[in-house]
């Protein structure tokens, strides 16, 4: 082994003049999600960053072309796996747009309530994970605890903690359970309590604020030209929220605000998400107040909706219809459609092409965080190495969605 301390005359040690190349990821502790960043550093300043995604490419779009329209639901669950319910609802709405069916009112309220629960879980995870990566472990534990409460409700409703596959074309798999409203009513308050506790710890912490404030700022116009949507865009002050701009379901009937930031930096993104948790709580409260207790949950269109179990077992028409829907899939009229909803990260779009058969011809998802991650290099170039962690954390890159 070489001696550790070499006696050097002054000026003898030559420092490298070339920029240093550093490879971050794809398995890096601070990179939840799998992304690789090849950095060119000058000292600790990033000169050039090449963000590489695709480490979690699972061929979602190809897989969709193999099954029936209904078999896509399990796959969409695993796109944005922090808020699967929003993806479910988004996809269901897209197919319904193509089929031209509307779901009953009760289902719309139900979808909204579940979707907002999922949004809470999404934002909790994002903010919690970002705080954890900056070393604040306790708020993470609280946020995860709050998330468990959300998941408990979702599990009670759908049977699965994370991957629900609960949406159906023309409705939902099951009507709300009898306790749904009570559970929601109880949980949202508690969740908000936990969020407030965690928030107090973080936002009164000088170190935390210093690491977020003025880190990775972006102007509104630039964010738009990059194709950003969702909380990341809203943090720059542009209040583009699909729930307000193009209301779907019953979003035009509920009362909520769109939190926006001013500077478009990491702190604003963090605060926007916290603000949205509060708004989601408001929406949920209105949903459970206005959701009818009785009434059908599925549309009665026999082309796409499975017949009731008693019909299947007792009538020949029911059996045949069931068989056809399961084996051949619901026949979706030929055509193309683009349907968009507000996902956890922004505009979640589905572009569907149908050739009139029971199998999708093409399912294209527009994942919001793909373009957001595409803009990451703009935020970190010229900054310090350590700024990557909060900046990346606040963009909420979700591997499954970003990499398709």
């Amino acid at each position, binding site marked *: 082994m070489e001696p550790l301390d070499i006696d050097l005359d002054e000026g003898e040690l030559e420092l490298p003049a070339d920029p240093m190349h550093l490879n971050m990821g794809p398995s890096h502790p601070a990179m939840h999600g799998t992304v690789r960043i090849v950095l060119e550093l000058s000292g600790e300043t990033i000169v050039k960053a090449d963000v*590489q*995604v*695709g480490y979690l*490419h699972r*061929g979602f*779009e*190809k*897989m969709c*072309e*193999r*099954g*029936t329209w209904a*078999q896509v639901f399990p796959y969409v669950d695993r796109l944005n796996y922090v808020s699967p319910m929003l993806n479910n609802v988004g996809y269901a709405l897209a197919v319904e*747009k*193509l089929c*031209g069916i509307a779901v009953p009112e009760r289902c719309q309220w139900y979808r909204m309530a579940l979707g907002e629960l999922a949004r809470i879980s999404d934002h909790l995870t994002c903010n919690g994970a970002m705080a954890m990566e900056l070393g604040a472990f306790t708020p993470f534990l609280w946020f995860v605890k709050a998330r468990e409460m959300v998941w408990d409700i979702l599990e009670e409703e759908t049977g699965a903690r994370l991957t629900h596959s609960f949406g159906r074309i023309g409705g939902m798999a099951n009507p709300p359970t009898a306790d749904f409203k009570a559970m929601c009513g109880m949980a949202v308050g508690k969740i908000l309590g936990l969020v407030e506790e965690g928030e107090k710890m973080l936002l009164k912490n000088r170190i935390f604020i210093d690491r977020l404030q003025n880190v990775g700022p972006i102007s509104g*116009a*630039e964010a*738009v*030209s*990059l*194709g*950003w*949507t969702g909380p990341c865009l809203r943090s720059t002050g*542009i209040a*583009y929220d699909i729930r307000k*701009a*193009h209301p779907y379901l019953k979003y035009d009937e509920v009362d909520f605000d769109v939190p926006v930031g001013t500077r478009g930096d990491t702190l604003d993104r963090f605060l926007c998400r916290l603000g949205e948790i509060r708004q989601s709580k408001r929406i949920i409260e209105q949903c459970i107040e206005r959701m009818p207790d009785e009434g059908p949950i599925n549309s009665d269109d026999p082309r796409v909706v499975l017949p009731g179990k008693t019909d299947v077992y007792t009538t020949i028409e029911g059996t045949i219809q069931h068989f056809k829907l399961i*084996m*051949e*899939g619901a026949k979706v009229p030929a*055509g*193309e*459609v*683009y349907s*968009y909803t507000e996902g956890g990260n922004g*505009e979640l*779009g589905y*572009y569907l*092409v149908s050739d009139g*058969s*029971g*199998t999708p*011809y*093409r399912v*294209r998802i*527009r994942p919001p965080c*793909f*373009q957001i*991650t*595409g*803009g990451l290099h703009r935020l970190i170039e010229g900054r310090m190495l350590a700024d990557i962690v909060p900046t990346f954390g606040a963009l909420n890159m979700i591997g499954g969605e970003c*990499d*398709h």
Partner: protein
Amino acid sequence: MSQLVLDKLKARFGAAILATHSDFGDDTALVEPAQWKAISTFLREDPDLDFDLPVDLCGVDYPSRGAAGRTEVVMHLYSIGKKHRIRLKARVGDEDMDGAELESVTSIWPGMNWLERETWDMSGVRFVGHPDLRRILMYPEFEGHALQKTYPADRIQPLVPYRTEEEAGVPLEKQAPFGPDEGMAFGRTANNISRAEVD
């Protein structure tokens, strides 16, 4: 509301707009591939249209179209200020995807950068003038374009050699009854052609 967009396009570009429709309320224009960039620039810069948000770009493969333009490149745009959308389509390439090229619009919307790379990677459409047209989702060693209908869904191209069966202690090949058509919807085969077409 946004018939305006299509009208303006038709007035300005005339014959380059091959077809339009507004099914399901989505305004769509099928355009001449050669005019792709000019139309995009117009959509971005016309103050009445002002499409500032690049929403999406993807390719849809229609092998049966053959020479008439096998891949359809589909672009979605949105205007935050005017609240309208448009879908722009262009058909490129022949049966072997020769000449599947479009002019890059990355200089108009920086957000199109990754989307164009993705479309190249998945559908095999080249974007001329793109600053850095590399694969994005797949690795550079990957051959072919996965979302073309002719690419078999289960053809893998491993980067690391698999362990041998003795080492792994498990069979590495698919066991019966699982075959290439496993999981396919009734009446379909693995290459997403209907069985009727095969027979």
